């Protein structure tokens, strides 16, 4: 099975550069604006797109992404509409990988088999589910692999060498290294510690390793990207989106460009990085 994720990382490897991975919340601040933003991402320099599935109780997220989820839910966003958003994006782009990221309950309630089939049809390539560790692989990970979707696992500073093989066993697409012990939007990670951690993970897997949590500026993005196969930025984009809204939290004429401009400058940072040594 080869997904758009596998293809994209293979292409980037040939080009000798790391991936720029963006995260935004589906339906933030409303479904129509959200689709316009997602459509603008590849041109602005996003190589892989992560889309958050809004949830009322996002236990691993900081205040920015929590608020984004609530804006989306208040705007009527549902899991079904998130899949529609992906379908809308796929009409104009069949190459950029889409990864859905979120928590398990909305999927469990939607129905695992129906969700996997609808997601695959909509053009989703991979899933990152924060509250499904390898101990719960029977729930969604194994069915997802069977359905032809990548299941991207988070590895963290607490995932030691003894545990890494279990974490990597059913992982595909790429490995998402969470650079800090903490929630999204927290302080930046130390580049040296990140480079050691990426090297450690690479001793256990041939999959690309992307790094996220705590990357906000083109400089940090460049520094991280030079030690990893990809850099993920979420909170900074969500904050830029929020800053463009009016006082009622509604999209303005500036909203799409506010996000696209920041994506473009961060993408330049990533593209300026030296590819990590294999």
């Amino acid at each position, binding site marked *: 099975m080869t997904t758009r994720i596998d293809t994209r990382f293979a292409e980037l490897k040939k080009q000798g550069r790391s991936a720029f991975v963006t995260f935004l919340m589906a339906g933030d601040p409303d479904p129509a604006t959200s689709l316009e933003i997602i459509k603008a991402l590849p041109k602005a320099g996003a190589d892989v797109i992560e889309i958050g599935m*809004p*949830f*009322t*109780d*996002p*236990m*691993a997220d*900081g*205040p920015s992404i*929590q608020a984004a989820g609530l804006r989306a*839910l208040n705007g009527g966003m*549902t*899991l*079904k509409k998130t899949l529609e958003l992906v379908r809308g994006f796929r009409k104009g782009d069949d190459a950029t990988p889409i990864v859905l990221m979120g*928590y*398990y*309950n*909305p*999927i*469990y*309630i*939607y129905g695992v088999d129906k969700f996997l089939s609808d997601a695959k049809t909509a053009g989703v390539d991979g899933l990152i589910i*924060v*509250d*499904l*560790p390898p*101990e*719960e692989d029977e729930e969604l990970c194994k069915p997802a692999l069977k359905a032809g979707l990548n299941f991207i*696992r*988070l*590895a*963290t*500073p*607490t*995932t*030691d060498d003894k*545990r890494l093989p279990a*974490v990597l066993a059913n992982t595909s697409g790429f490995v998402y290294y*969470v650079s800090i*012990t*903490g*929630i999204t939007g*927290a302080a930046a990670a130390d580049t040296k510690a990140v480079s050691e951690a990426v090297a450690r993970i690479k001793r256990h897997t041939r999959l690309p390793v992307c790094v996220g949590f705590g990357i906000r500026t083109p400089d940090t993005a460049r520094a991280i990207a030079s030690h990893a196969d990809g850099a993920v930025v979420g909170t900074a984009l969500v904050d830029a989106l929020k800053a463009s809204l009016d006082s009622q939290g509604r999209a303005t004429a500036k909203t799409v460009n506010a996000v696209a401009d920041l994506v473009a400058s961060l993408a330049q940072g990533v593209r300026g990085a030296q590819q990590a040594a294999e």
Partner: protein
Amino acid sequence: MNIAKPNSYRSGPDEAGHFGIFGGRFVAETLMPLILDLEKAYAVAKADPAFQAEMNGYLKNYVGRPSPLYFAERLTEHLGGAKIYFKREELNHTGSHKVNNVLGQIMLARRMGKKRIIAETGAGQHGVATATLCARFGLECVVYMGAVDVERQQPNVIRMEMLGAKVFPVQSGTRTLKDAMNEALRDWVTNVHNTFYCIGTVAGPHPYPTLVRDFQSVIGNETRVQMQEVEGRLPDSLVACIGGGSNAMGLFHPFLDDPSVEIFGVEAAGHGLTQLHAASIAGGRPGVLHGNRTYLLMNEDGQIQDAHSISAGLDYPGIGPEHSWLHEIGRVKYLSATDDEALEAFQLLSRLEGIIPALEPAHAIAKVMELAPKRAKDHLMVVNLSGRGDKDVPQVGDILKGKKK
């Protein structure tokens, strides 16, 4: 429901922390290694007689156990049916059953070398118990409490601060217990290296539902012995209120394999089951939140819904996974009591027995008022009086004043 009855109701959970389909370990990877460590540390402690002996010493001399099993003579006369006994958990040091569990977890934290303790709290009883034992053992204590609960349970906030704990009012979401738990989990993910999360109820990722149940089972174990002493036999029924369900599980678990004992859990029906409430079993369905699969209040998209109860301690949209299993398998009957019913029971008990109960067990008393009159006079009914009402006096006083107007 067509579920095979097990040989024992007391053998769960399985190795992965499942009670039937409920329970499990639905947590972020950052926490997983620590949860596995906790499971190991608990298994070792459980098998160590020194651990139990040390805990028994504190339970006796610090907490004040055993708590009395008291014959509520005037309530019994008033209701005219079953003979009603109270398990007086409200007489424990700190004023509720919460201290039983906190003592056990703090002793585990000490064995694991953790110096910083975090906790979530609803009514503040678990927060007070945690702050108390942290003071006793010289540990740093941080308590997360929904901003709404900080308002309605001021006396407990002041107590926690006097005991040296830091109380963080949580402003996210509905600003009640569920959000306090989210915030505690966020703290834990961030400070995982030095922090022990002292969960206040029989919920959360495995092994918490099991270890909290085990620490609370002292309630039911004492009740068996005490009832044998006064009546020479087992009770006929047990009644306890349920938010997450730790006081109920503590009373119920030692009796699960005694088929003659009828068991009733009482959820909070808030304004009524067709309106805002906190009765996860009566009004919810199975889902995944806060590390476990269990009955939850949610909408058709799997988004968690706001709970409501007059009692901050029951104001939670979920329930412990073992309760979900006991419901599905039919061993325990789950009822619910509204805010108004609880308020009525609160006043009745204060006047008839000279015991001001917390609003939480007032829900259990409310159902006793329905169950007891229908039972014979030799029927022995035990109610867990899980907490005292001092913390609720200002709130109930205001409500009653408002009603008179």
